[in-house]
């Protein structure tokens, strides 16, 4: 770059500065409220429209102004998450007797998308916490539910889901029954006691080191899916320790650590579900988790689309706003189409899960694979539409791109989503 160009670039940056991206962000938010409800009013219930309005309001006031700072500082916004829990977002799908809101999965998809618009990384942690709460609600006995859920749902306590290990990623999630499972974390029965002793380590655990409760899948029996059980480990248990927080490309407002278990003694009362039920529990959690992550992708992509459209309508080159060029119009139209398709697939998967459809897992895999890919591409296109400014941290789009990049990887890689889907396609109808 020539010196003259570089200095004029910097001057322009000083003029536009940090304030303009805040303006972009907030005004995008308000204009999208009016527009986006028109696209969905015919298919959302009155309740879902209310839920979305609440989530949008919360996202605009609490998440949107702070996301960039949290990302920059690697700050986990515990107090804002607790505020969200106070509104009922902590245990959305749980029963009312423990403080849950008893919402269905379609409601959840609407809410998480609206929240992710404000900040993908923080909302993604909220979905993981909700997944853990749902598993305890569904598989826990009365004692476990009453002991843990009221505090978890209010987010007095935070939770993490621990399946992945350093040497066991996609393989632990494989659904081919004949495969042997490489889960290295073991839980043996202690001598002369009903306690279990856990040894092993988990990798890439969202909320690691901060969470109070860890849902850990460990091998209690022979190799194979039926040899895995689920345990509730509490921070502070002797032998439970955490690696240093990972330095990640995105999701920087969440701590991600390894979870290390060295002769951790866990009472049998902390086993969730039956011995050998752990794998089924893990997979049940992931169906909902995949829908939630895909919802977050949609929310992040909607923000990117809105901000790109706003930028392009004000950026003038060759004597006119770049939205007057057909290639920009076509690009934005394609982004909108891909986002709309993603959203509908996610909503359909949520409805299938609510209905208990035997194809719910397949729908969730399809929706997750499609939406996370499409929405990352939307974010990437949005960055391109911003030109050089898109590459600067002054503008929020690069953070959404970084955050969305991991959605094609976690909760089951998009490659594994194809494995899951094809297995369902092979089944007799």
């Amino acid at each position, binding site marked *: 770059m020539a010196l003259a160009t570089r200095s004029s670039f910097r001057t322009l940056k000083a003029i536009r500065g940090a304030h303009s991206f805040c303006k972009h962000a907030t005004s995008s938010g308000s204009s999208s409220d009016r527009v986006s409800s028109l696209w969905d009013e015919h298919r959302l219930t009155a309740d879902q429209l209310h839920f979305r309005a609440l989530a949008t309001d919360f996202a605009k006031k609490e998440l949107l102004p702070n996301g960039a700072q949290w990302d920059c500082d690697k700050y986990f916004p515990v107090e804002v998450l607790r505020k969200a829990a106070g509104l009922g*977002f902590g245990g959305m799908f749980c029963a009312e007797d423990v403080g849950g*809101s008893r919402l269905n999965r379609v409601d959840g998809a609407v809410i998480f998308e609206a929240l992710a618009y404000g900040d993908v990384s923080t909302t993604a942690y909220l979905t993981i916490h909700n997944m853990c709460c749902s598993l305890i609600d569904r598989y826990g006995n009365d004692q476990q539910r009453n002991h843990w859920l009221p505090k978890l749902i209010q987010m007095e306590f935070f939770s993490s889901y621990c399946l992945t290990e350093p040497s066991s990623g996609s393989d632990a999630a494989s659904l081919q029954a004949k495969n042997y499972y490489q889960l290295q974390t073991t839980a043996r029965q202690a001598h002369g006691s009903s306690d279990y002793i856990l040894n092993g380590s988990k990798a890439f655990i969202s909320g690691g080191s901060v969470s109070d409760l860890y849902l850990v899948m460990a091998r209690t029996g022979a190799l194979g899916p039926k040899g895995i059980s689920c345990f509730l480990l509490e921070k502070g248990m002797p032998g439970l320790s955490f690696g240093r927080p990972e330095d990640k490309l995105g999701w920087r407002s969440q701590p991600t650590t390894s979870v290390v278990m060295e002769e951790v003694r866990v009472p049998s009362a902390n086993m969730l579900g039956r011995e050998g039920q752990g794998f089924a529990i893990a997979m049940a959690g992931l169906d909902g988790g995949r829908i939630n992550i895909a919802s977050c992708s949609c929310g992040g992509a909607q923000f990117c689309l809105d901000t790109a459209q706003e930028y392009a309508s004000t950026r003038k080159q060759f004597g006119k706003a770049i939205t007057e060029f057909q290639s920009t119009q076509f690009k934005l139209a394609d982004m909108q189409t891909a986002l709309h398709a993603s959203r509908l697939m996610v909503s359909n998967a949520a409805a299938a899960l609510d209905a208990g459809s035997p194809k719910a897992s397949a729908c969730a895999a399809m929706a997750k694979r499609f939406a996370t890919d499409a929405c990352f591409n939307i974010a990437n296109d949005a960055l391109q539409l911003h030109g050089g400014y898109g590459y600067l941290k002054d503008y929020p789009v690069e953070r959404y791109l970084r955050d969305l990049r991991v959605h094609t990887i976690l909760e089951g890689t998009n490659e594994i989503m194809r494995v899951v889907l094809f297995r369902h396609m092979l089944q007799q109808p």
Partner: protein
Amino acid sequence: MSMNPFCEIAVEEALRIKEAGRASEVVVVSMGGEQCVETIRTGLAMGADRGLHVITQDSSSLFPLAVAKLLQALVSSEQPRLLLLGKQAIDDDCNQTGQMVAGLLGWPQATFASKVSISDDKESVCVEREVDGGIETIQLQLPAVVTADLRLNTPRYATLPNIMKAKKKSIQRVTPEELNVVIGSDLEVLEVTEPPKRKAGVMVASVDELLDKLKNEARVF
């Protein structure tokens, strides 16, 4: 959702008064077409006990005097001790309804409230008002009319459980005819125009010229 921001502040204040034990019931009122139901539901989701919807064919004919007359009729059947309104609606910026209904009812009024305190014996209310010269504190006998200004409070979010509970709360529907109020077209909007575009400034060549213009044209001194 789509509640006038000053009205939202008024609803919040009403809820706080009830939570402080100074009121037994909060009723939210809206007037106009079907879209009022959404607004009332928002108030119910915040925590109001029940809703009243005055249905009119056409919301655009509801000028402040008509609203004040309808409120006057509702007050005679509901018998509230306090009428809390937003100071003005952000579509027409009239800032008249609260004042008019107080006049029609013969009730004391405190407008632009930035602080509201009901007395322990619930017979009077002390209000701090934002006026041009600063803050004025006045005490009114109840029943009274108070209109809310921006700094009175920060409205709460509805919570998910409250949104769902709101569905079970009742919204009573009533027409102007049932209230024996005739809505006349007292006002007619003749024209709505933008203010004239700001004229470009004038470049002056010297300080003397600047002083001359300030003295003789702008008449600053």
